[in-house]
């Protein structure tokens, strides 16, 4: 049981950092940003390059990768999204998929299609009969710190409100003296940086592959949906809930409840939980998508 909880924490930390970025950009830009997932992959590759080829210490490599990916995100915004102001949210969502494909193939072309590993050898730790590693501890701590920082940034500074104001009515915001370009760039930077950190942690824990995006896509979007799409805090909780559900369902030995034979849900049904949770929550929370008031 303890093991299940530990696994839950680790997985939700990895997914959560990426998910809060999606929620952040949704709350500001009002569209589901698929490119965000790819930022995570790009960030991980950058960290890998810095660490393995340029021999940066790992921590520095991840921080540099976060900054660089933030820069890439800002560039993507400047080249693409900032010029799409009149496009519908659906349109932007499709464009973000286009950006994701482009980044994906660039990564594939540069780094090849096979996967890579950082080759870290973290120490193994043990509490009772539950096992984890020092790296796991780092992942969880970083995730928690990152989320607290973001929460502070959004809710205790004017920045968050200004970002939401921009999303709600850009023209009006401009005429209130809100410097739209700078604000939105900042948001993209934060998103990119968070994605990169999340992606790097993910890659450190497992491996690095160009198709990593497809692996994290469903759990991340399911978490964000669970949290109510535009709610940063909700996305983090969503990641936790989803991760718990997945680990419980797979980890619990249902067979032993009814008979002597052990039987648990085959692990390949893990993704069903992500999608299933998403669908159920959407059915149960119609007010989430409350229609615009009819005046």
């Amino acid at each position, binding site marked *: 049981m303890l*093991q*299940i909880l530990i*696994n839950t924490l*680790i*997985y939700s930390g*990895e997914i959560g950092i990426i998910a809060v970025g999606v929620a952040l950009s949704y709350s500001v830009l009002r569209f589901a940003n698929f490119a965000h997932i790819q930022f995570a992959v790009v960030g991980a590759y950058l960290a890998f390059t810095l660490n393995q080829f340029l021999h940066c210490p790992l921590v520095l490599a991840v921080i540099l990768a976060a900054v660089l990916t933030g820069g890439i995100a800002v560039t993507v915004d400047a080249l693409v999204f900032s010029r799409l102001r009149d496009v519908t949210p659906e349109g932007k969502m499709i464009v973000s998929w286009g950006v994701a494909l482009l980044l994906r193939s660039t990564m*594939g072309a540069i780094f*090849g*299609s*096979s*996967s890579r*590993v950082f080759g870290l*050898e973290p120490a*193994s730790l*043990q509490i009772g*009969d539950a*096992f*984890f*590693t020092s790296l796991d501890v780092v992942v969880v701590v970083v995730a928690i710190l990152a989320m607290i920082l973001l929460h502070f940034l959004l809710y205790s500074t004017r920045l968050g409100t200004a970002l939401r104001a921009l999303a709600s009515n850009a023209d009006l915001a401009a005429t209130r003296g809100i410097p739209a370009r700078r604000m939105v760039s900042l948001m993209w930077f934060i998103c990119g940086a968070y994605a990169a950190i999340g992606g790097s942690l*993910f890659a450190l*824990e*497992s*491996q690095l*592959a160009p*198709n*990593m995006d*497809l*692996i*994290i896509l469903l759990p991340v979007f399911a978490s964000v949906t669970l949290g109510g799409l535009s709610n940063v805090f909700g996305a983090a909780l969503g990641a936790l809930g989803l991760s718990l559900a*997945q*680990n419980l369902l*797979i*980890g619990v*030995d249902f067979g032993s409840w009814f008979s002597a034979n*052990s039987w*648990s849900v*085959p*692990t*390949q049904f*893990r*993704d069903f939980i992500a999608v299933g949770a998403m669908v159920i929550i959407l059915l149960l929370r119609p007010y989430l998508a409350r229609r615009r008031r009819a005046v």
Partner: protein
Amino acid sequence: AEDAIPVGVIANLTGTDVQSSLDMVHGAQAAADKINASGGIKGDKIKVIVEDSEYRPAAGIEAATKLFDVNKVSAVLVFGGSSVTLPIAEMAQPAGKIVLNTSASSAKLGDYPGTLYSTLPLDDIVGAQLGDYVAKEGVHTAVFIVPNNTFGTGLMDKAAAAFTAHGGKVLKEIAYSEGQPDYRADLQAVQRLKPDAIIGAGYGDDTRTVFRAARELGINAPWYVAYPSIFAVEDPKWMEGRLMGLDNGGLDSPLAKTLSLQATKQYGAAPRPNYYYAYDAMTLLGLAIEKEGTTAADIKKGLPEAVKGYQGATGSIDWDARGQRINPPMDYFVFRNGALQPAPAP
């Protein structure tokens, strides 16, 4: 005469497992180069045309259609799982073309006699050998851990059958989805079951993650696997003496050694086994063409003769009536001092 004989190679250049796939292309190319360097086949050079299957049936068929129709090849070498190889065989059969399989191992591939020939043994054969081997090593209880695909489950079924036939007990069969970042959840059950051994199969990237999950969860049972050479070891210290397995043999043949050296020089790393399967496939194809001619019908006639007495990179090749490899030489390995070392047969 500078007429070229076109030969198709269908590999997945995008999608999963691109690296092995490229090795396979290199192997085919090496054989073709060798034939061409020695003057070609009756003066005609072999021209290798590579197409992408994206590891998807539809794209594989598109590639095959193009090769058969536009490039007028009589035979294709295919790399890819059975979900790619089977559909290609399916369409080649009525078209009267030849498919040479260099990587898929589903037992179903045996259903296309006269169309599909394999230079590696299929799962039914290797699986049974694996089961026997584990039982003979004195293992009584085991957990299976394989990727959830035809290769994994097919092998698992045959191995489990052989293992239980020798009185072994299968505690659990785990088929994991490929490409997951973390397999802790999958392996938790094993922690509880405490088996004598773990029996497995898998591809490099995933196996590394699986090993890591096992190590982190404190699962210390030894691993008996099929094709250990395609496994990626994560932590050599922990793995020391803990990974054993059997592989298609013959790779220690003098020919394979020369090829390995040559490929290492050319591409910077020793190639994976698919290199040698492709090498053999291409060489056999060349022999068949030399014997009978370039049409598919000629090749079909020529292949069974070509294989007789052939000493390839993967040892001697015996085909049954279906064109599938039987009695393959088997090698046994154990992981020691950071590498796979030959081990005695049980």
